């Protein structure tokens, strides 16, 4: 059970000595409660408190990291069921499945394309995380050849899928020293797979048809000394997968049920056709998968998924922001005015809606104010004449709105003088304080 700041505070020395770098013990306790700092920053905690606090600090869901050649994919360590309760931390890794019945050249081609795939979304380069090589041929030679082909074409982390421990062993040999994810242990083969996991210090998936089976097998595998486990429920329907993952997360996070306190892998590629696969992968991303294996790899398939993942794993505690830029509302012409606001989403939406509702065309310049509302941003020095002028230049507003009339929010009327200095050839106007009054203002003052 997570402790509150006050509960932790009661275990601290309460001397407010500031040695931890925080002004008071309570301030430090609250950071601890939020899991933003480590306890050892306070040199004065008693051993007893240390023990108690360590217990509450163990994450309910184990962190699993797949590494290869400096590339890393993490899953687990999540602490909430719904993103609004705090945030989700580790984006599910997207792995492209390669079956070993493919010819080496075909493998290399597919892998190379996926390996270099990168797309830019709101200034961030998004990529795929790795490959899952599956033994479908039944031959260890084909499997090891396929693994080698994948490794030759990409340095990203790998998941090895095979039922047969002997086949798996061959694949592991190719990746010696890498610790790929072994997929995996089932009711029949778990001992052999666990041995391999031990031998290669690699994480292991555990499969089961029901939660009972999963938990049983986890305990068995744990009994063999395996700590790094990924759950691979055998269900393949949307409803089955959803229910299973919801329950696994609930048990781990709310009940602290250790036997299922691991991330879950979803093989969306098993869904059948690409249309179904896409839906399955989308569900896996929005609902609790730690690793997602896809078969289809077309940019129009990958791009939406990778964006969805980015969206769902955005920290909702951060102020909701929109992209700074010059927005067109009601098809503005160069002669139409430019209204300025900040990139705080609520601010942006209320302003944009009002302009839209007025039916009058306008340009809406959204300045980067670090996601703060007009007044807050102004107070913190993030929305001043200089910044507005910078946005005007950055988004080349002058070339689009050649009339050069710019309207400031009424709340920052004080900036008008400075803005005139910053933008000497612009006509600076002061608009209303509240968005509601924009239509009236536009009708009266701007036409």
């Amino acid at each position, binding site marked *: 059970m997570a402790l509150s700041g006050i509960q932790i505070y009661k275990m601290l020395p309460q001397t407010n000595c500031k040695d931890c770098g925080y002004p008071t013990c309570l301030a430090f306790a609250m950071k601890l409660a939020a899991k933003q700092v480590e306890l050892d920053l306070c040199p004065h905690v008693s051993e007893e408190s240390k023990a108690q606090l360590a217990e509450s600090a163990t994450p309910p869901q184990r962190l699993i990291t797949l590494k290869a050649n400096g590339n890393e994919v993490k899953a687990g360590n999540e602490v909430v069921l*719904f993103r609004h309760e705090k945030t989700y931390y580790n984006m599910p890794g997207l792995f492209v499945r390669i079956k070993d019945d493919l010819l080496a050249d075909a493998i290399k081609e597919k892998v190379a394309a996926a390996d270099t795939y990168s797309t830019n979304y709101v200034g961030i380069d998004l990529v795929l995380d790795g490959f899952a090589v599956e033994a479908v041929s039944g031959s260890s030679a084909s499997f090891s050849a396929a693994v080698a082909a994948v490794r030759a074409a990409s340095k990203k982390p790998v998941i090895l899928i095979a039922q047969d421990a002997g086949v798996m062993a061959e694949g592991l040999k190719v990746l010696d020293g890498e610790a790929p994810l072994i997929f995996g242990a089932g009711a029949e083969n778990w001992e052999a797979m666990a041995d391999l996991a031990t031998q290669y210090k690699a994480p292991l998936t555990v499969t089961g048809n029901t939660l*009972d089976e999963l938990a049983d097998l986890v305990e068995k595998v744990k009994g063999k000394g395996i700590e790094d486990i990924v759950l691979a429920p055998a*269900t393949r329907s949307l409803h089955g997968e*959803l229910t299973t993952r919801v329950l696994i997360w609930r048990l781990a996070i709310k009940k602290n049920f250790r036997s299922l306190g691991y991330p879950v892998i979803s093989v969306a590629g098993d869904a059948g056709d690409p249309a179904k696969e896409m839906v399955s992968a989308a569900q896996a991303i929005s609902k609790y998968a730690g690793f997602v294996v896809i078969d289809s790899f077309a940019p129009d398939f990958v791009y939406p998924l990778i964006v969805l993942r980015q969206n769902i794993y955005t920290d909702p505690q951060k102020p909701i922001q929109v992209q700074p830029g010059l927005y067109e509302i009601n098809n503005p012409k160069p002669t139409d005015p430019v209204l300025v606001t900040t990139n705080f989403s609520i601010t942006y*939406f209320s302003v944009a809606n009002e302009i839209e509702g007025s039916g009058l065309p306008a340009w809406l310049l959204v300045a980067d104010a670090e996601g703060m509302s007009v007044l807050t941003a102004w107070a913190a020095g993030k929305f001043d004449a200089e910044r507005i002028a910078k946005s005007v230049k950055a988004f080349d507003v002058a070339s689009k709105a050649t009339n050069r009339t710019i309207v400031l929010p009424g709340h920052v009327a004080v900036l008008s003088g400075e803005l005139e200095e910053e933008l000497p050839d612009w006509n600076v106007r002061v608009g209303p304080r509240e968005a509601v009054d924009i239509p009236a203002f536009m009708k009266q003052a701007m036409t």
Partner: protein
Amino acid sequence: MPVEIPKDKWNGQVRVVTLGATADQGGTRTSTVTVGGETTMPFMHFEGEIPHRPVIALEIKDRRPDDWSSLLLDLWSDKADDPAVWAKAAEEAGADLIQLSLSLTNADGNPTTPEAAVDAVKKVLAATGLPLLVFGPGQADVDNELLVAVAEATKGERLVLGICEDKNYRTIVATAMANDHLVIARCPMDVNLSKQLNILISDMGLPLDRVLMDPTTGALGYGIEYGFSVMERLRMAALQGDAMTQLPMIVTPGFEAWKTKESKVGVDVPESWGDWEQRAINWETITAVALLESGADILVLRHPESLKRVRAAIEDLMTAPETV
């Protein structure tokens, strides 16, 4: 090792809302659509009731739209020239409901008149027996003018009138009350604002089982995460017993997705975006699926292929798992 299934105990229930009225009920629809009634989070069949499956509406317009993607216009081709034909085609494509969005102006650029709006609505009502949602063009005064006319001309149909916003709800709510229709309460991605608008509408005297709420969702890549979380929060509040959030949620992934550059634009886009048509359909589908997972009861789409995919997902998700 038997694992004890952790069930959440909810004491609230989403209201059951019925759209459309048959002849017996004072309308002309051949069938009605009922949504809501959930007593658990989306598709958690093992712990609560989900008596009505989420439904899909297809959006059509009163005339060929100027601002829709050519992918959609090519697809509907000349059916888009006549709302009656279009509505019929949408029904054939598998829609549970039709959303008719009124245009701000007619093809000549003159403002849409109330008569024209009524005419379009009547045509659609004649062409299909499905329940109908009618959206104004989105400008307060025009919406009020057109929707009041439509509402009066179709008294008793239990149409869904879209949309009420905090700045403009009184007129639409009043006409819905007077003419036996439903309304949509729309708020910009904020739990509190949604709830506040529902309270204000209910304070006017419209029974809440005639209100749907649209939390505004954004599209994939354009703020869908806010919509996603706002919907989860609203649904949780509803299940916790907060009467003012116990309304079925309507979302418009078609509108949201098809205004993104990803769907609208086929040329001069990065190669990493892939095939235009597939991407556009995927965009709409994923937007819809994410909203489905977060609690949507009515999804308004634009492309029949997206409809097919989302429909398949709903069917799968409405199956209760045998074992967990």
